[in-house]
């Protein structure tokens, strides 16, 4: 089982859209996939039409009083399940802090799922906190959406520094450009001037597109609602790169 987390310190940069579309594409390729919506705002949960509620709240889950298995819900898509968000996740830092090894707790909770799933996608809340530290420890791949601005690149470099300083297990950190607006000169300049040897920034970039914004209405990944659109093609290319980073190039499941 491999784990990918869509993560950013900032909100509204396309984390949830990426998480949903990549998870759908992974499941379509045959990976048994679970999305864990860690964000108390529950956007991923809403988009999958699942009720954002965990019996006993996040506390019961984190403390192991409620079996993680029982909280999982199937989505409408074959091979794709969801561990829904709960409003109590806003206190997740405190819940984790009470645990024995507070930075390893999420990884520990995910471990028993390795028989049921090939891929876990963590959709993270925008913050840098104990939850993020847990995500860094649990993920194999940390996927960071970047709006092409100077500041966001600077923040990404800071994040690389934070991850490099971690003890023990460190995720592979890759960014991709998100919400790219072809009409904005700044976006084009930033992407053009990026040093070519930066392997930590993926080639695929996701455009700022109406169909991504409409996901709130269609409540479907864009690769389902508008499979021929630019955004769907971008997510498909992005998934291919993530697949290779997670499973190795040519590992066989992506057609």
């Amino acid at each position, binding site marked *: 089982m491999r784990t990918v987390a869509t993560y950013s310190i900032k909100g509204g940069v396309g984390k949830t859209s990426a998480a949903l579309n990549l998870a759908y594409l992974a499941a379509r390729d045959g990976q048994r996939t679970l999305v864990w919506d860690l964000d108390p705002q529950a956007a991923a949960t809403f988009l999958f039409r699942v009720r954002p509620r965990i019996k006993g709240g996040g506390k019961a889950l984190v403390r192991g009083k409620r079996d993680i298995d029982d909280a999982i819900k199937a989505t409408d898509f074959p*091979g794709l399940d969801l561990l829904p968000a709960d409003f109590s996740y806003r206190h997740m830092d405190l819940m984790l802090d009470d645990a024995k090894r507070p930075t390893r707790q999420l990884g520990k909770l995910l471990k028993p799922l390795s028989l049921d799933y090939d891929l876990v996608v963590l959709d993270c809340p925008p913050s840098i906190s104990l939850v993020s530290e847990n995500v860094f420890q649990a993920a194999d791949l940390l996927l960071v959406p970047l709006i092409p601005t100077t500041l966001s690149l600077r923040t990404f470099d800071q994040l690389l520094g934070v991850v490099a300083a971690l003890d023990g297990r460190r995720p592979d950190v890759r960014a991709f450009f998100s919400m790219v607006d072809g009409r904005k000169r700044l976006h084009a300049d930033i992407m053009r001037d990026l040093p070519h040897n930066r392997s930590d920034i993926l080639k695929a970039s996701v455009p700022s597109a109406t169909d991504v914004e409409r996901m709130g209405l269609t409540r479907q990944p864009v690769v389902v609602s508008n499979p021929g659109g630019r955004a769907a093609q971008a997510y498909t290319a992005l998934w291919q790169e993530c697949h290779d980073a997670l499973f190795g190039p040519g*590992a066989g499941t992506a057609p």
Partner: protein
Amino acid sequence: MSAPKEFTCAADDWARASKEIYQRMALSIEAEQVRSLMFLDTFDWRLYRAGYVLAHVDDTLELSDRETGTVVARAAAHNGTAMNGELPGKLRGRLAGVLGLRALAAVASVDSSSVVLAARNDDAKTVARLVLSDSRVDHGGRRATLKYRLSVVPLRGYDRHASRLSEELAGTAGVEPISSSLFEEAVAATGRRPGDYTSKLSLDLNRDVSTYDAARLIYRTLLQVMNANRAGVVQELDTEYLHDFRVAVRRTRSALKELAGSLPVELENRFRDEFRWLGQATTPTRDLDVCLLEFPAFRQRVGVSSGDLDPLHALVSDEKRRAHARLRTELRSTRYQRLCKEWSRAVDAEAPSTGAGPVGTTSIGELADARIRRVARHVLRDGSRIDDASPAESLHDLRKRCKELRYLLEFFSSLYEPKLHRSLLVELKALQLNLGQFQDTQVQRHALEEYAERLLEAKKTPAAALLAIGRLVAVLEDQQRTARTEFADRFSEFAGAKNRSRLSALTEARP
């Protein structure tokens, strides 16, 4: 108990029941599909026995739990990949231990037209599905129509909704639960039954049956094994078809020797010769199969430059192709066809073409005791005569005796106390394993020396290839010496007081 998930209804009720269910349960049509699916398993049903069902659906291979129907692994598959034994990485890793040397083959091909109906909640979220399907099985050019099927597909976290759907179905006129899965029904339509073949011999005898009847049951069962495996041997689907075929021939030859006199003597003599011929016809291919199967281990043993063994591999593969072509010819020959036809007539249960032989009226219990005692006595006598100076042939002869004893114990397992029988078999197998290691390394060494000569004559062989064979021969010599050293311990365990008393208790007399 969980509610049934699979239902059926008669053809006459199908249209009415489908419409009623659709309207009453407020379902929505999610998809209409026409699908072809192929169920795959090994010839001896290894996936089924391990609790799996593997289906090739469109471009995907789906491995499901046989009991729950839950998909446990899914992988993209291009046409024919599974059939060529090239499972996609993820499935290969998971199933390697289950499949062993066996290849996958299609066990049933199904064409289905189905309608997927979704039960949705207030958020328009799908909470359960109902699949209505009408399927046909294509088998040898004939098409069999399967029962109409209504399958409730529960979704994780929404079990309650699936149960409600099942209850509603159970209450619909003309709809009733069906206990067999689509896999089982499709396989049945091809005339087979999951688990209908195993390489293990399982005969149900009792002590009072005449030797004549018991022998015919044994011969018939072994002939069925040969017939079942013949096509796989000819088509070379995997190496185990030939293995099982050969074991059945050897068992038949062993029975012809140990149960001599059960059938008329002339008939036995004739078929003894015929089965010797058949056994010999299969030997070259099998020896080469074993050699090729050993190659990964050979490569490991000679160390780093394992490519040095490639010329040897090419030579052995070539030999194997030729040997197999000869075997194929033998198995298609008139001689083979006549053997099968006449042997089948001789051992037929209902209308045998022959009467009983001189010992045909003896009870099988009595004869089995006597034969097991005699062969065990020979094993103990021959084994005790082997010392460090004995030639390799004496170990080879002892191995043959052990096989005879093993076959007798297997033919007559139903006549003996199971625990005692099992303990004896365990001890015997340990001794056979040691003798097998000794003999196999002996055969392989000689074969390698012969191949090295031929490669040398070919003149184009690089020196590194010959040196690698030399290293391999040295490793095999070393292994053979180890097996020889271990023989004394293995044999003294088999010949120990504990095992001797097991042997006497089994047949109620000291061997």
